[in-house]
Structure formats: structure tokens, C-alpha cells
């Protein structure tokens, strides 16, 4: 998404879904994962007669509320979307003006789409041609239509292609930048957007500044620390700019290529310590490897309100520390919602017993590691304070530094005032009334200046920039292959001095683009460009002139830096269709992918996986749990809803293996791992696939690990982790594991 | 011996009730239970039960409880008891085993019936702890009842089979409507006793079955599932049967007491020491008397 038009986030908002005339949901199950947000879908249906189209390998609770349900084979979203595009272009349903003014590289997509006629799509995806025609017709004709997705689209070896083709579909129909349209990706947990914005990522600094030297320089000065000191903390300067390991494959960093594991590139050493803060690492793919990684560490530190079951999974006896962390109710601060809006969360009680808040744990750690002063310096800069107030000064520090996604407006004071006046905002548009007039609830970023009211709807050129309007971001240069990358004539946001496309604003071009003259003082204070302009002069001036600081460019359908410039279908590494795996092979193996050599084609062709492992394996969530389920399974009433780990299986498939409803079954993975779970008959899965929730832990490959829980900490419900049998496979760009399209073999236990 | 197996079977049944954590009343089966209420094609047992319990059962029980004794009181006053000579020979009719079994049954009835009535008229007794204890006694004494009723069934099965005398007995209502000592057509047991026997045994088994169902409430019976009878409907049917049969049991129980204690003076002794007056046998069980005569036992 970020590579398509600038930002990787939900473009509209949950409330705005009520404005849609059609809603297409790809690999997401909001009825289960976003039950409260789902009411907007239901209201769209009620009030707007909106049609809901669900595309999912499993018949979900969301599908139960849909008007159309297409049961695709896992990992074939790209053929499905190309099938839609094929029909859209063929019938001329696309928005030609929108494409020519605001999109680059659509021709290549059109060319590829020609190949995907409904018959072919039916063969690859399993969705009947008639149905494809029916839903495409419906979706293309009911504008605005919004497109929803979540992990069902991303967790594939070519997930990053999926998440590019979905925006392309919306661009083709001109569904971007309009109310009721947009690509509304749903974040799986509270504050995932905030965590991402703050760089819980290994390839960028906060605010998506990347890891370039310039970015480090900017942060060093903004944090009030010496750049040399900062770079001195790395093995060598060169490692500052390198991507780190990811959550999906940190264990490879421990195993260091031993025993046939993938080779790593980590300055000649392996990982020795693991520090986990609030992450259920028992819900990530390939648990057997996670266990191997844990077993080989020198030290493990786990900070969680409940026992992190990594401590149960590992056989390691010494140097495993469990630190009791406080919950969200015992601390305060800002959290960012899926629609990029922010809320203040107040403390309800002081941290209980010996638990400590996350920031206290980090501060204590920084003190002992000797960099506490540098660590906290940034919070004191704004008002030149002696000491800082947590968390307000941290929030203000973020507002001061992060320009890229426009967090300047997110001062602690403003965020709090939104919470105190939450009744003063419209529920659908988020627009404020009375004294909150001119602001949108939660100041959805970008909130360019300290008075900007937020941008509830990205890329909307029908509003002025001051009211949240903008074009697409100018992020990928001014031209490519001789084609202009700036937006076409007349496609600037309302009330702009520039009617056409324009580049991102820098100290050099500001006078020309904005048509203004800077004073000498301003010239002195202004930062190099809008991203590092701590003086805020660029943003302020832009608002006055109706200019979006990041420019006004074309979205790109073609990403020339990616392995596939336009999204291409590639079969999952473990595909039940070996014939198609030959026709649509995976990527070449990738060396040094987030420091780990990662297999693609060599894995796919290692053997004919579909012969020994004929069944598709899909994992997902339950409504009563999230993540690794640590805290949910420790709740009596939540655990009672699903007291045991289970596998949803079609009665016809189960019958073939003599598995009865409620009996135990083994599930074997191509990795040689297995789990023993209870069979639950369900018609929500067809005969060629099974579904399992991934929230359980406490059993491993048939062995009950109950005895390993410290006294009194065993949750009410434990069970096998579905991820013990999820397959090898990682996205080519993001390295997210391919948990939504693997293979397995089952037998009666 | 038999009773031991029944207790074991009961315990097994109770473990069944524990074995399933999934409720058949309140889990997903709730739907079937609800659909059974008034949907087309359902048994409508919910409504029937509600109507019966809210308007009929209490007055009926009240009627039987006081009406039957009232009739007997009139009978006693107008016709009076039968008195048989104690001077003639005594005939040994009930073995010790017979008498023990009967005694246990008797105790069971004396416990079960009043406690059952107390539950039925719980409001009168103020509900709460007292009635709850009666309810527990009702359940526990059922075990006693089971222990007695099974051997009773087996030991008296043969003589309780219907015979031609029964019709004649019925025609003259056992000769109780006058004081004449005409021989009454009856074998070892007369038609009235047979009625009581069959009600107490077969009816008793039904009472036990329905009572146990109500007691355990949440258990899984495959026959129900395969016949798509919802659990609640089964319980409703149990409650209806239990109450309707209970009426009959109560009526005959009262009759039985009247007969043995008041209507036939001294009849109760036979259940205590095993001997009946020869005249009593000659008159009230004339066919049996003839039989004994032929065998030369009388």
C-alpha cells in the first residue's frame, strides 16, 4: 500500500463504511475479529442497502452476513482479483479519467488481466465463473464500493502482491478518495497501527523514515543525542542501515544455519538473548522452530501480565525470566486505531502487586545498561525541562518529530480534549460539533499542524488540505520510464493554489510551488524538506495555500523495485495443485531476507507436496480470543466458550478418515511436525481444507505441558498450537509467514 | 441381587450425567428445546404441561387426597368392615421374604407419597428448606422403592396374571357393597389387588424412570436424539406422566390402606405374621380356597 500511494494504512474509517454501496471483504473476518466495528457493515446493509461480498477459503461469521460468498482456494486471491479486473476492463466499467489523472502503470495491469478470463479463474480459484461475473458486475456497478482486507490477504508468500492488487482494483474503479470507498485494512489488535507507526518493525525508524543515514541524523538531533554516540552502539556504522530480524524468523538468528537451518547474515554471530514484551510468540508460524530457537538461547526474558507460554514451550531450565507487566488499565497514554485516529487511555488503577508498566521496565533496563539519560532526553527538549512527565512528554515528543505521517497535530493536550468531548463528534464522519468544530474525532493522521483537524479520508481531492484533503503522495520520484509521476491537470485538492500535480515540498521548491515569498527569518529556520522541518514552516504555509506537504502525485500500479513489478500470481510454496505450481512458480530463493536466507522455489519444488499432504490448512481467530490467547484462556468465562483446541472439519472429509465428531485427530505438516486436536464437524469448511484457531498453547506435538506452568498460572484452557503445523513460507517483501495457505495430512488418533 | 445391579446401573447413569460437559438442555441443543414449544408439528408438551400444572394437577391431587378417603368413610359408616372369624384355622399365605419385600415397599410408599404431595403443594408448606428436604427424601426413598419393587414384581408375577375370576370380581366390585359373606370369585389375589400390583410395579417403574429423568435432567440418551425428541420435551413428558400416574398411585395407595387396615378387620396381620384367617380366604379368595382344598392344604 505504501508502495502504491504513499501510506500503508486504512484509507477511510470504520464509520465511513456506512456510506458504501458495496463492500467486498478479502480474507478478513470482522464479525469475529472486529465485532464492534462490524456494526458499521451491518448498518451499511440496513441503511444503504449495501451488498456485502465475502471472499474467503472458510465460511466465516462474516460470510454468514454476506449477500455473496465466494469460497476461494487459499492463496489464489490474485487470480480472483485479476478475474474481476478482466471483466471490469472488458466491459469498460473502469474509471478512465481517474486512471489517467491519478494512476501510473495501469496499462501493464490491463495486459495481465486479459489473461484471466472467468473460466481460467474458476480453474485456479475454485470460484465458479458465473459467480465471479455476478459479484464483479455487482461490485463495479455499485459505487462507491469499499474494499476490506486483513491477514487473509497478507499472510502468503506473495502477500505483498495481494496487498498491491487490491488497491489497484480500487484505483481502476475510481473508488479511492471518496466517501464509502477506499481500502480499509483492518488491524488485528488495539493499537497495531500505533505500534507500526512507532516502528515495531526491523526495517525503519519511527514514522517510516527508513534506515538511511539522513534519517538517523534527523533522529539523533531530534532525540537530543549525539549521532556518533548512537552509531557507536552498533557493531559498525554499516549495520545501522541494515534491516534486522523479524518476529517471524528471529529463531533462525539463534540457530545460525546449524542442522540444515537457513543461513543467516548477522555480522558473524548468532542471537543469544531474547527479550519479549507483550508478544504471544506461541502464535507465530513453525512452533517447533520457535521451540528450537528458545532452547538454544542463553537467556529469555518475558514481560507479560500473564505467563508467556514461550516459557512453557521451551525445555530450557535456567535463565528464563518472567517479569510481571502491568495491563493497559494500570497505565495511560495514546493508542492509535485502525483508521489512524488516536485516543487517550486513562489509568484506572495503580499497577497491582509487583507488576510494573512497560515503560518502567524499559527505563529500568536502560538505567542498568547505562543509557537512561540519552533514552529520555528527547522528552525534555520541547520545553527544555529538567525532568519529564510520563506519558504526556513522550506523546509531545512524537508530535514534534514525526512529520512523515503528519503527527504534528497529536499533542497530548489535543488528544485528551478529544476524549473528554467524544460526544461532540458525528459517529459516521467523525466531524466535530460546537467547540470541536473543524476537527475530526481522534485527529486521524496526517494532522499536519498543531491546529489541523485530521484527515479522515486519505487521498480525497474534494476537500481542501486544511479540511483533510490531499492527493496521492509524491514518494517515488518525479518520473519513471519517461512518464510523469505527478498527478494530472486539475486533480489537486480543493482550494489549492496549484490546480495540477506538484512535487513534495522542500525548502528549495516551496516558494515556487506555493507561490509565496519566505522572509529571511523563515528561510533561516525552515528545515530541508517537509519530513524534517521541525520549524513547521512548510506545513503551516502549505495549509494556507491548500497544498499537501507531501506533494500531489500519481498512485503507482507498477512498483519497479519489487520482484514482480505488477502483482503476479504465484502458487503457495505448498500448493495442492502441483500442475499450477509449475505454471505459476514461486519466486527465486532470496538471500539475506531480513538477515536470513529464505527459500521459495527450492521449497516449492523439493517434492510434490500435494501427494503426501493433500489437505489445505487454514488458521484464524476466534471471537473470544486474540493472539496467543494467554490472557483470554486465563479468563474463566472466555475459556468456557472454547474450552479445548479443535479443528473444524467437513463431515465428508472426516468420514473418509474415520474421524468422528468430537474424536481426536492427528494433523501432520510437511515440516514433519504433528499435533493432536479434537475434530469438530463443520460445514464452514469444504472437503479439501481444514480450519484451526491459533490461540492455544500448552500442548506440543501430543504432549501435555501442564506440569511446566508455575504454580497457579495454568490457564483454564490449554491445547495444541495450530502453528506447530503451519508450513514454511514467508512473504517475499515483508517476511510475514504463509499461515493462510499450507498443506497437511490428517489421520484418526 | 437384582437391586444391587440396579444401584450400579443408577450410579452408571449418574456418571453419564457428569461425563458430558456439554449440556443437552442449555447448549446448542437449546435450539431444539425451544423449537419444541409451539412450532408446528411439535408435541406441544410445553403448553400441555403448563395448562395441566397450572390448573389441573393441584385440584386433582386435592380431590383424590380427600375425596377417596371421604368415600371410604361413607363406606365404613354405611356398610362397615368385614369381620372374619378368628376361630378357624389360619392359612400361611405370605413367606418371610414376601413380607420383608412388602414392608420395604410400604416404608418407601409412606416416605414417597407424602413428600411428593408436599412438593405438589409446596406453597402451602412455604417452600424453601423444608420442601427441599422433602424433595431429597422423595429421591432417596426411591432407592428403597426400587429395592422392593423389583423382587415384588418377580415373586408375585404369576399369581397376578389376569384370570376369568377378575371380570366376575369387577362385576360385583369385590362384594364390598354389601355385608353378606358370599364367596367372592378370586384366586390368590383378587382383581383389586392385581390392579394395585400392576400399578405399583409397572407404574412404579414408570414413576422411577420419569422421576430419575427429572432428577438428572441433563443427560444424553441416544434414543431421544435418534428420534429427534428434544431433551426438554422428554422432561416435560416425564413430568406429565409422573403426575398423572402419581394420581393413580395415590388413589390406589389410599384404597390399599383402607382395605388392609379398616375394611377387612385384621387383614394387616397377614403381612406381619404371614397367616390369613381361613374364613377370609374362603370368602374373599374362593377360587384359591378351592384350589387349596383340592390339594388338601386347607
Amino acid at each position, binding site marked *: 500500500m505504501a508502495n502504491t500511494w504513499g501510506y500503508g494504512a486504512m484509507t477511510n474509517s470504520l464509520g465511513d463504511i456506512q456510506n458504501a454501496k458495496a463492500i467486498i471483504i478479502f480474507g478478513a473476518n470482522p464479525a469475529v475479529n472486529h465485532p464492534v466495528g462490524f456494526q458499521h457493515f451491518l448498518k451499511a446493509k440496513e441503511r444503504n442497502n449495501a451488498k456485502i461480498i465475502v471472499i474467503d477459503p472458510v*465460511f466465516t461469521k462474516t460470510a*454468514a452476513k454476506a449477500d455473496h460468498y465466494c469460497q476461494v482456494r487459499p492463496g489464489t486471491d490474485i487470480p480472483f482479483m485479476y478475474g474481476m479486473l478482466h471483466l471490469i476492463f472488458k466491459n469498460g466499467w473502469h474509471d478512465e479519467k481517474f486512471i489517467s489523472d491519478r494512476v501510473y502503470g495501469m496499462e501493464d495491469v490491463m495486459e495481465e488481466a486479459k489473461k484471466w478470463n472467468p473460466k481460467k479463474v474458476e480453474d485456479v480459484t475454485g470460484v465458479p465463473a458465473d459467480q465471479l461475473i455476478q459479484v464483479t458486475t455487482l461490485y463495479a456497478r455499485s459505487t462507491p464500493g469499499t474494499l476490506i482486507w486483513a491477514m487473509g490477504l497478507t499472510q502468503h508468500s506473495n502477500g505483498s502482491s495481494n496487498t498491491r492488487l487490491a488497491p489497484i482494483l480500487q484505483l481502476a474503479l475510481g473508488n479511492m478518495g471518496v466517501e464509502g470507498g477506499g481500502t480499509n485494512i483492518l488491524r488485528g489488535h488495539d493499537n497495531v497501527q500505533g505500534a507500526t507507526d512507532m516502528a515495531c518493525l526491523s526495517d525503519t525508524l519511527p514514522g517510516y523514515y527508513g534506515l538511511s543515514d539522513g534519517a538517523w541524523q534527523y533522529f539523533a538531533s531530534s532525540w537530543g543525542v549525539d549521532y556518533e554516540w548512537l552509531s557507536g552502539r552498533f557493531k559498525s556504522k554499516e549495520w545501522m542501515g541494515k534491516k534486522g530480524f523479524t518476529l517471524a524468523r528471529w529463531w533462525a538468528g539463534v540457530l545460525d544455519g546449524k542442522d540444515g537451518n537457513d543461513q543467516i547474515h548477522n555480522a558473524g554471530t548468532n542471537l543469544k538473548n531474547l527479550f519479549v514484551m507483550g508478544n504471544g510468540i506461541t502464535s507465530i508460524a513453525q512452533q517447533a522452530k520457535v521451540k528450537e530457537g528458545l532452547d538454544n538461547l542463553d537467556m529469555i526474558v518475558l514481560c507479560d501480565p500473564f505467563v508467556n507460554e514461550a516459557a512453557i514451550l521451551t525445555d530450557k531450565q535456567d535463565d528464563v525470566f518472567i517479569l510481571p507487566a502491568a495491563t493497559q488499565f494500570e497505565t495511560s497514554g495514546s493508542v492509535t486505531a485502525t483508521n489512524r485516529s488516536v485516543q487517550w487511555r486513562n489509568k484506572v488503577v495503580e499497577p497491582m502487586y509487583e507488576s510494573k508498566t512497560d515503560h518502567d521496565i524499559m527505563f529500568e533496563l536502560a538505567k542498568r545498561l547505562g543509557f537512561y539519560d540519552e533514552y529520555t532526553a528527547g522528552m525534555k527538549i520541547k520545553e527544555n525541562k529538567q525532568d519529564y512527565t510520563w506519558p504526556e512528554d513522550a506523546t509531545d515528543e512524537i508530535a514534534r518529530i514525526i512529520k512523515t505521517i503528519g503527527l504534528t497535530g497529536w499533542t497530548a493536550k489535543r488528544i485528551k480534549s478529544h476524549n473528554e468531548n467524544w460526544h461532540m463528534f458525528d459517529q459516521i464522519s467523525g466531524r466535530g460539533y460546537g467547540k470541536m468544530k473543524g476537527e475530526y474525532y481522534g485527529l486521524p493522521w496526517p494532522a499536519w499542524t498543531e491546529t489541523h483537524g485530521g484527515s479522515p479520508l486519505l487521498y480525497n481531492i474534494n476537500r481542501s488540505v486544511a479540511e483533510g484533503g490531499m492527493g496521492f503522495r509524491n514518494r517515488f520520484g518525479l518520473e519513471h520510464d519517461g512518464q510523469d509521476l505527478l498527478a494530472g491537470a486539475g486533480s489537486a485538492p480543493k482550494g489549492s493554489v496549484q490546480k495540477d500535480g506538484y512535487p513534495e515540498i522542500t525548502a528549495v521548491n516551496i516558494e515556487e510551488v506555493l507561490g509565496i515569498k519566505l522572509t529571511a527569518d523563515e528561510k533561516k529556520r525552515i528545515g530541508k524538506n517537509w519530513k524534517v522541518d521541525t520549524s513547521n514552516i512548510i506545513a503551516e504555509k502549505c495549509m494556507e495555500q491548500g497544498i499537501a506537504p507531501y506533494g500531489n502525485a500519481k498512485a503507482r500500479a507498477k512498483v519497479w523495485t519489487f520482484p514482480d513489478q505488477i502483482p503476479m500470481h504465484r502458487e503457495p510454496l505448498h500448493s495442492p495443485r502441483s500442475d499450477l505450481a509449475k505454471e505459476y512458480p514461486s519466486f527465486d530463493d532470496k538471500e539475506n531476507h531480513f538477515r536470513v536466507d529464505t527459500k521459495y522455489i527450492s521449497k516449492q519444488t523439493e517434492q510434490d507436496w500435494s501427494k503426501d499432504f493433500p489437505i489445505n490448512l487454514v488458521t484464524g481467530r476466534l*471471537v473470544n480470543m486474540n493472539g496467543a490467547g494467554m490472557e483470554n484462556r486465563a479468563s474463566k468465562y472466555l475459556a468456557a466458550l472454547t474450552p479445548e483446541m479443535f479443528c473444524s472439519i467437513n463431515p465428508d472429509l472426516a468420514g473418509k478418515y474415520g474421524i468422528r465428531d468430537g474424536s481426536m485427530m492427528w494433523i501432520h505438516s510437511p515440516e514433519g511436525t504433528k499435533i493432536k486436536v479434537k475434530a469438530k464437524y463443520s460445514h464452514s469448511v469444504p472437503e479439501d481444507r481444514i480450519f484451526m484457531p491459533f490461540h492455544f498453547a500448552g500442548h506440543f506435538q501430543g504432549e501435555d505441558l501442564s506440569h511446566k506452568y508455575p504454580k497457579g498460572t495454568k490457564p483454564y484452557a490449554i491445547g495444541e498450537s495450530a502453528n506447530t503445523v503451519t508450513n514454511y513460507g514467508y512473504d517475499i517483501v515483508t517476511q510475514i509467514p504463509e499461515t493462510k495457505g499450507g498443506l497437511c495430512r490428517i489421520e484418526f488418533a | 441381587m437384582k437391586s444391587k445391579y440396579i444401584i450400579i446401573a443408577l450410579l452408571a447413569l449418574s456418571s453419564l450425567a457428569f461425563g458430558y460437559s456439554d449440556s443437552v*438442555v442449555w447448549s446448542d441443543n437449546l*435450539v431444539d428445546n425451544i423449537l419444541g414449544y409451539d412450532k408446528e408439528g411439535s408435541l406441544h408438551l*410445553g403448553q400441555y404441561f403448563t395448562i395441566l400444572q*397450572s390448573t389441573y394437577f393441584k385440584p386433582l391431587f386435592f380431590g383424590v387426597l380427600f375425596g377417596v378417603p371421604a368415600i371410604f368413610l361413607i363406606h365404613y359408616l354405611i356398610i362397615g368392615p368385614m369381620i372374619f372369624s378368628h376361630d378357624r384355622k389360619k392359612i400361611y399365605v405370605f413367606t418371610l421374604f414376601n413380607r420383608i419385600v412388602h414392608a420395604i415397599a410400604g416404608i418407601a410408599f409412606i416416605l414417597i407419597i407424602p413428600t411428593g404431595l408436599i412438593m405438589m403443594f409446596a*406453597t402451602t408448606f412455604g417452600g424453601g428448606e423444608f420442601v427441599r428436604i422433602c424433595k431429597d427424601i422423595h429421591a432417596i426413598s426411591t432407592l428403597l422403592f426400587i429395592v422392593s419393587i423389583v423382587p415384588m414384581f418377580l415373586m408375585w408375577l404369576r399369581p397376578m396374571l389376569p384370570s376369568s375370576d377378575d371380570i366376575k370380581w369387577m362385576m360385583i366390585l369385590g362384594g364390598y357393597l354389601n355385608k353378606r359373606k358370599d364367596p367372592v370369585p378370586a384366586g390368590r389375589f383378587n382383581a383389586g389387588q392385581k390392579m394395585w400390583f400392576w400399578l405399583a410395579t409397572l407404574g412404579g417403574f414408570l414413576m422411577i424412570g420419569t422421576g430419575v429423568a427429572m432428577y438428572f435432567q441433563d443427560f444424553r440418551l441416544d434414543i431421544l436424539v435418534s428420534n429427534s425428541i428434544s431433551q426438554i420435551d422428554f422432561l416435560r413428558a416425564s413430568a406429565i406422566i409422573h403426575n398423572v400416574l402419581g394420581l393413580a398411585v395415590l388413589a390406589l395407595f389410599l384404597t390399599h390402606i383402607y382395605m388392609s387396615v379398616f375394611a377387612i378387620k385384621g387383614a394387616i396381620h397377614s403381612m406381619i405374621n404371614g397367616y390369613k384367617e381361613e374364613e377370609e380366604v374362603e370368602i374373599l379368595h374362593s377360587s384359591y380356597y378351592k384350589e387349596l382344598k383340592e390339594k388338601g392344604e386347607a
Partner: protein
Amino acid sequence: MSDIGNARLKFYCDEHRCISCDGCSVACAEAHELPANINRRKVVTMNEGIFGLEYSLSIACMHCTDAPCEQVCPTDCFYIREDGIVLHDKDKCIGCAYCLYACPFGAPQFPQDGAFSIKGVMDKCTMCAGGPEETNSDKERELYGQNRIAEGKVPVCAAMCSTKALLVGDSAEISDIYRERVLSIGHGAKTQPYGWSTAYGSKI
């Protein structure tokens, strides 16, 4: 607006909205600290996994007009409040389960206590209105859970409902809300909402 004096409080679960998230039942269990095997509220899913036929409903005591449970109780321990809430007295109840047999919705439940599965006294949804004990006393809380109605709060299940499928309030008003939802779908007249006539009669 309805006449507050004559308000009869009712539940209604809109099956077009219910997504079986169990928010209601968990909120109820948590708020009233119910024993493990008691679910005053239960969400059931019909035709699971079948397109076009699957739907879910949240079910608890419907606080019936002319409540059948009240009619059959041998201890007469039920009482119906002026606002239509059907409550019962646990001190009187003998746990005979007749109310369960009479109830169209399987609402009354019995905690199993003791090794021989002796049923305890009946428990059911109180519409968060406690019981006959002194309002907001410890005893009331222990026996019947929170009395939110006395505190002027909405029953916790409906308050927690994530999609506002579960409605509670004056019967006239909730039927208005529901009617509005149905009409705005634009499918024309709907079949009669499930369970409505059974619970509330056809008067409304």
C-alpha cells in the same frame, strides 16, 4: 415515546445483526459472577456453515407476559414487577425444574452442586434487576447478581452487545427500533420476528 408508567421491559435479539460474538453472555457471567455451568444468556447458531441459512441469536429469559414459569411453580415463588420483569425468590424455590418445563426458551437453569448432581435452586436472567432481597444488599448480590436496574443502568448484556443486535427496553420502543431497521433494508414486509409472538403474545 411510550408511556413510561405502562412500560413493559422486553428483550429482543435481531438475528440480522447478531454475529454470535458472545459478548452478552460473557458480560452477564462476569457481571453476576455466575458459577461455571450457568449461562443466563446463551448465543446459539443455527445452520452453522451454510450460506444463506446461518444465523445466530442470543437467548435468555424473555420476561414473558403471562409468564408460564410463574403459572406452574409449585411454590409460587415468582413475581412479576410492574415493569414486566419476571423475578423469583431463591429462598422459596425448591429446584423442582417445573419452570424449565414450562418455559418456551429454556431459560431456567440449575447449578449442579454436590457429588450426586443434586440440583440447586433455579437461576435465570433477572434483567439485571436482582431479586426480592433488599435492593443492592450483599445478599441480593450474592443470590441474584448485580441490580443494575435499581442503579438506573441498562442490563449489562445489551449494553455490551457489539452490534446492538440485542435490544432491551420498553416493548413498544424496541419494536419500533426493529421495525425501523427492517423497513430501511427495503425488502418490504418481513416475516414475524422469531420468538416474538411466543414470548410477548401477538398484541404488540
